[in-house]
């Protein structure tokens, strides 16, 4: 039932049909032990459907997958003992307190009697919720609810953690805290399978990213390699002190510069190469006796990579579930 191997997840030809339509269409990928693997795609791409199949919540229509060496069709109950899942919705029990919720989940995960409360309190402390341990789940803020939902998935010290859109609906502070926590968990050895439609989040957290569009993986690589695949016109951004009013016109006459645009206090210059652009900027600065307050070569972002590699409209990507 269990196969040994260095892959936390191996997926081959995994397919899921709903009403004859392929929500996930014959996808193949592997997630290595200790990796942060991102599943990126717009809403409806099939991310959550894939997680549901890998965690045993739904059965694949076709294909195979092993999670922690267990076949998802025959050994998922055993695999569940070793992985944790943070669903998109924080779905603990409103009527139970933070501590009671964790103790209940500990009971389901066979944590021995004397360790249940100890482990729950340990996690409450890790997530800064010790002061709220006797508060009902319904009385917690959205960020606290999210944190407690993640804590519930960590009770049994899983080797693999599935995170489905973990930062959706969180404010900036809580989203940042959560990202740091994901990093920390990974440093402690956990493999992370993360779905998100936030491009920067995937770029920041993931070792490798699979981009899923309409149920198919269109590309799978490291964030840097994905960005390098982008056809990109070399560009630099600069800010002079003071910034001359005619800077855009005058810089445009410099050798090697194709076009210029103003971005807030900076100007962005596009040209043949970054060295030529840099040379032009420094020449102009010394001619006009200007101080360079900021200069940076502009590299393609994950957004650029996503748009070019998938052809998906970025706005469609950024719309949250429910059309927000």
């Amino acid at each position, binding site marked *: 039932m269990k196969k040994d191997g260095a892959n936390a997840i191996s997926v081959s030809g995994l397919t899921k049909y709903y009403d004859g339509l392929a929500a996930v269409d014959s996808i193949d990928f592997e997630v290595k032990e200790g990796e942060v693997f991102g599943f990126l795609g717009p809403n409806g791409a099939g991310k959550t459907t894939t997680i*549901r199949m890998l*965690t*045993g*919540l*739904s*059965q694949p229509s076709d294909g195979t997958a092993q999670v922690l060496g267990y076949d998802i069709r025959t050994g998922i*109950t*055993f695999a*569940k*003992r070793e992985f944790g*899942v943070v*669903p998109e*919705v924080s*779905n*603990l*029990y*409103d*009527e*139970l307190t933070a501590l*009671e919720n964790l103790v*209940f*989940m500990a*009971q*389901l*995960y*066979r944590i021995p009697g004397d360790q249940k409360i100890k482990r729950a309190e340990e996690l409450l402390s890790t997530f800064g919720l010790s002061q709220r341990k006797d508060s009902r789940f319904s009385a917690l803020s959205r960020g606290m609810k999210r944190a407690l939902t993640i804590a*519930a998935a960590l009770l049994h010290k899983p080797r693999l953690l599935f995170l489905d859109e973990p930062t959706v609906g969180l404010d900036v502070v809580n989203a940042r805290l959560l990202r740091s926590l994901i990093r920390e968990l990974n440093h402690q050895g956990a493999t992370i399978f993360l779905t998100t439609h936030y491009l920067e989040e995937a770029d920041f957290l993931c070792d490798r990213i699979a981009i899923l569009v309409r149920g198919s993986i269109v590309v799978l690589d490291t964030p840097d390699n994905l960005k390098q695949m982008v056809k990109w016109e070399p560009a630099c951004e600069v800010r002079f002190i003071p910034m001359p009013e005619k800077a855009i016109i005058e810089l445009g006459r410099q050798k090697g510069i194709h076009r210029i645009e103003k971005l807030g206090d900076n100007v962005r210059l596009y040209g043949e190469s970054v060295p030529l652009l840099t040379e032009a900027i420094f020449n102009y600065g010394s001619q006009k006796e200007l101080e360079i307050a900021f200069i940076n070569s502009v590299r393609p972002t994950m957004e650029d990579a996503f748009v070019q590699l998938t052809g998906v409209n970025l706005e469609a990507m950024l719309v949250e579930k429910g059309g927000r």
Partner: protein
Amino acid sequence: MWKDNLRSIYYIALKDMRTYYLKAPAISWGIVFPVAWILAFYLRSPQDFKELVPGLIAMTILFSTTAMEAVVINLELRLGSLERLLLAPISLSAVLLGKIVGGVIFGFMMTAAITVSSVLVLGLQVNILHLVLILIPSLFVFSSLGALLCVLVKEVFEAQTLLNLPRFLMIFLCGVVYPVSAMPPVLKHLAYVLPLTYTVEGVQQSLGSVHSGNIIRDILVLLAFIPIFIFPAAKLLAKKFA
């Protein structure tokens, strides 16, 4: 594995008791409704009330167990917490049985309260062993029936509405208020297809209201109804998450 499942059934039922027993739909359909019916029958005709007690105990089992199933299953379906249980390393059947046991315990508490009050107030003679042997399978049968119908819909109010169909059908056909023996042959045959008839007859015999009948048959038939409701409920729940 089976030990894990048994342990989880207990923990789920315990959690449901703490979480849902005081929810409004459980109180209104599981407590207020049976009590109101019992009081209505008593006030209308106190002298004939003794004869109605077995039927009203059976009705209490029916309403309390099914009302609780609507709460423990449909609230969790709506909030997504049932998914959380299904992500734990236990079988889907164990999750469902945990939910059914939650309904059984609630039903038992309600039925025990009504039965003890009736026995004390009316001075009824009780065969406790027979009563327990008929009540336990009945609680499981109607809790399972509730689970079967509740997994078909998502919202609590939809479940309660759907449950009213078999509830009222059985109240009128199974001898709760009108004896099955006095019914036309067609309805009599129909009554013996419905599980509440066997509960009513079993409780009647336990309370000495009738001296004919076969309590062993009633218990066996009720036991047979349990898998008839549980297996399709498990299938439907699995299909819901397919």
